[in-house]
């Protein structure tokens, strides 16, 4: 049976000689295929005397097992080496950067406005909007600012050539939206009104004639000034962080009484004025056919542009309207 013993050695040599998987398949066919010596020997078993058959068959099977083992391990080695050469060929330097996929950027005002809206939505408010061109009724009179009132001068209103002189204007605050909401909706009311507002301020590093505000309005039974202070505080924590504190200082607005400015604390211990607020003036409620003996409420408002300017420490607020792509793409 030395033939067969040699066979294992030959197969070992041949499989090591095979340098590719294709070659190895040929080797496999040669030694294990239908016409291989091993198969022929197996077929020839019947011709052996009965007492030799068992041993011979066992030997054939052992050798077959050896050869299969040889080929399979060689196959594994060859496969490994093929992957490795493929990987070597495909090697890429991942630091050769072509820059990121182009994406667009939301304007900073939109980002801040969305974030502010979301805070108030979380507090149960809905978001309402209104026209940017308004009548004197909505911008002033309904807000308890009669035509002779000194506060009218403070609004630096931009008027447009529609209707009677000074009857139609670009809204100087988003408060007209509050009036429109109170006129059209029964209390309770929990809203915020974000949007564009206008003043005759020449554009400079800290002023724009067109800017953005967000105002809040709550009308419900038993609403107090304590509720106002608590709401401002809760908003300040949600938007600026738990460590930031708020305070109210007496101020004056014709549409609220008592009125206040609200400040937020800075890390250096100083206070920064953020906006105005107060308890909705009974005259404003009456102007909207809401009975001030039954309903009470508060309102607050502040500038979004200033907030953005502070947060990103813009050195010139005009960046927000110039729309230089190098600016827009930073955020």
């Amino acid at each position, binding site marked *: 049976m030395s033939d067969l013993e040699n066979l294992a050695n030959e197969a070992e040599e041949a499989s090591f000689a095979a340098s590719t998987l294709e070659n190895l398949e040929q080797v496999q066919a040669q030694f294990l295929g239908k016409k291989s010596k091993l198969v022929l020997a197996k077929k020839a078993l019947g011709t052996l005397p009965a007492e030799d058959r068992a041993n011979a068959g066992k030997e054939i099977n052992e050798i077959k097992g050896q050869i299969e083992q040889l080929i399979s391990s060689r196959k594994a080695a060859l496969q490994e080496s093929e992957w490795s050469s493929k990987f070597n060929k495909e090697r890429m330097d991942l630091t050769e950067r072509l820059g990121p996929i*182009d*994406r*667009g*950027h*939301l*304007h900073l005002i*939109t980002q801040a406005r969305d974030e502010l809206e979301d805070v108030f*939505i*979380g507090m*149960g*408010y*809905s978001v309402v*909007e209104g026209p*940017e*061109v308004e*009548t004197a009724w909505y911008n002033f009179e309904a807000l308890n600012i*009669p*035509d002779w*009132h*000194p506060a009218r001068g403070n609004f630096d209103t931009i008027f*447009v*050539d*529609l209707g009677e*002189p000074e009857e139609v204007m*670009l809204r100087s605050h988003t408060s007209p939206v509050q009036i429109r909401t109170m006129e059209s909706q029964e209390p*309770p009311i*929990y809203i915020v009104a974000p949007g*564009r507002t206008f003043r*005759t301020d*020449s554009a400079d590093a800290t002023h724009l*004639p*067109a800017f953005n505000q967000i105002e809040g309005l*709550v009308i419900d039974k*038993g609403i*107090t*000034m*304590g*509720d106002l*202070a*608590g*709401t401002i*505080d809760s908003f300040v924590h949600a938007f600026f962080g738990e460590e930031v504190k708020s*305070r109210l*200082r*007496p*101020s*004056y607005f*014709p549409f609220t009484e*008592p*009125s*206040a400015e609200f400040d937020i604390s800075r890390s250096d211990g100083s206070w920064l*004025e953020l906006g105005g607020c107060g*308890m909705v*003036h009974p005259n404003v409620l009456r102007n909207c056919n809401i009975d001030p*003996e039954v309903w009470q409420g508060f309102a607050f408002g502040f500038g979004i542009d200033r907030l953005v300017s502070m947060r990103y420490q813009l050195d010139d607020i005009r960046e927000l309207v110039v*729309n*230089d*792509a*190098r600016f*827009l793409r930073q955020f």
Partner: protein
Amino acid sequence: MKVLLSWLKEFIPDLDRDPEEIGEKLSALGLAVESMEVVGSELSGVVVGKVLDLRPHPNAERIQLVDVDLGNGEATQICCGAFNMHIGDVIPVATVGSILPDGMEIAQRKLRGEVSNGMCCSASEIGLGDDSDGIMILSENDPDREWDIGGSVSDTLGLESDILWDLEVNANRPDAMSVSGVARDLAASLGLFFEFPMDRTENPKAILEAGIQIEIEDPTLCGRFLVCVMKGINVAPSPQWLQNRLIHLGMRPINNVVDISNYVMLELGQPNHTYDLNKIKGSRLGTRRAKAGERLLTLDDAERTLSEIDGVIVDGDDNPVGIAGIMGGASSEISESTTDIIIEVAWWDPPSISRSVKNLNLMSEASMRFRRGADYGTNMERALNRVVELLSETCEPEISKLLEAKGNLPDTSPVGVSNQRVNGLLGTSLTSEEMMDLLQSIGFESQELISEEEDENSSPNSFKVNVPSWRWDTQTETDLAEEIARTFGYERIDRTIPRGPFTGQLSRFQKGRRTVRQILIGAGCDETMPMPFLAPGDLENAGLSSTAISISNPLVQEESLLRTSLMPGQLKIISYNQSHRIKKLKFFEIGHVYLPSDGGPPLPDEREYLSISIAEGDAAEIVAILDLLSLTMAFPNTQLKQQEIDGLHPGRSAQVFVAGQNRGAVGEVDPRVLRNYGIDGSVAWLELDLGSILTGSFGKKKYKSVSKYPSSDIDLAFEVPVDTSSASIAGCLRKAGGTYLKEIGLFDSYKADAVSEGFRSLAYSLRFQSDEGTLTDTEVSELRAACITEVEKKTNAKLRE
């Protein structure tokens, strides 16, 4: 309003708090501190100098050489950049080695070859007011004074170290437009004693017959009119201490009569006016409404044309000698030769003065106080007596009795306050006694009501409050609630959070708009937000109608129109960015446009538009973004209708229809428009009336089951006339393919020699699939044939074999 610590102390003798603490108290009272500074600190080395000679600097045009006598009789040369002094003037000079209040150290220097031995100072440089316009001429108002040349400027001017606060005073605080009013609030919040020290001075004896008549013709315009005549006045410079205070508070000293008038206004908040008695005709002062067209030359040397809105003070000939509550006339102005004067203290109706200020566009220190509501009580007499007192310190005049005329004054009946309502508004639990004490501290007297009085709202009042005459603005319970809250301290109110009955959320429109933004930034577009103003010509340059709403009071012509399209603004942004060599410009904007409305309400037809612009982009690219939007947002039935549109390339523009409504335009901007805006290359453009689309139906997506059976793909190419749209071919294919046509795509479009003149080749790939079973080859062939037949029957396109 500016206040000095030393002046406040005259009203609060025990005021000994730290300036920082006083500042915080003032802010907490609603008198926000805008700035606080130390003034009049020791000026060592700054001396009184006399100008001996002025010579041009040989090497510098903007500098002159000044020889000053610093007390030793010798000329000391100084180089100076100001030219407002003359030989003989007395000026402050900072000598070598001195340190100015702002920290500047004075050294001997050489300027372009000339030695400078010190510095001539402006008023602001020695810490006296804000005037930095030229060198301070000490001798300007007092040429006859004996000056201590070489002496200390601090001693000469009587400068003392003091604290100056600049306070922001709100429109509802007429009383705080004076040092005494600020002091009253401050004393209340600190629990300190407050007094008017001048009330302790005995009024001078009236020995003179006034000899004039006064009369109020319009009692709603003028509530009280007080006058006093003084004879034997010597018009001269004011005492230096008084000048210093005026300068610190931002006013310019003129002469004793004018300065004292201003001083009393700042001190007591009572504007007052002095007339030269001998220039008032007919020995009479009256007040009435002006007649339309009446003219008056005012103190600022401007001729004013009045109307019935304005009030006037008139003389015996009924000619105006002053505008009520705003400014006096030039004809009776105090001059150096004035010896006899009339002092007037009046109370004018705030709304009348406010309207007049607006009508004349004329603001003054007086009108600022009158329009808020000056004190109509005994403070008027106090102010008049104070003017007399201060003038009597500078000369020895004879004085008349006060004359008074009365008109209508504000309603002074007490205001009822309900303890329960005030606590309900503030969220406090103060007792009536506590509320009354808080009000008492700022001069509001109240009486508790023992038998409860019911007001018209049948809510029982707890106490009644007499509103003091210096708080014209305070008229209702809510006004008083504010005073209670203010004096109690806003910070002491417990904070609570109301819980509303609602779940907060965005409207469908607002959610849709946010999604549109997200889609567009995903598509690589940067959001822009230009201001909505346009310059004249912007619309015409964009090929659009010039009809737009104009601004009545534009700041600049470039911002004098309201936009009717987002296009001009976007083109300016592209032009700006291209000029800064920025590439790959893909922008979008969502903003309002203001279309003139025909008739109806006065407001414009305001709409919220979306624009997308791609620099160097073509129509196909922008339509692809429109398709992305339309599919993702599920806009119902989005169709393009190719046609010429203003401002767009005539061959590359289409109207966009959503749900059958024209909602905008898409294409490329007309190259002539681009030239007007200085833009290189093309700009692909889309503008939609997003507001209208998102308030209509959108976002409705319906489930369709996915077929389990294999699909078959075929390609079809047609020769299509150039004026036949791809949309119409695709329509035919869809119709013929019916429910079996699952996908259709245009994958090629070209014009080439192989295609007949006037035609182009359009190639579509179609995927057929049945939901019921596998389509047989025969069925697919039949569908293919049906598609070809439908296209060839309905259009002039031919299959390319």
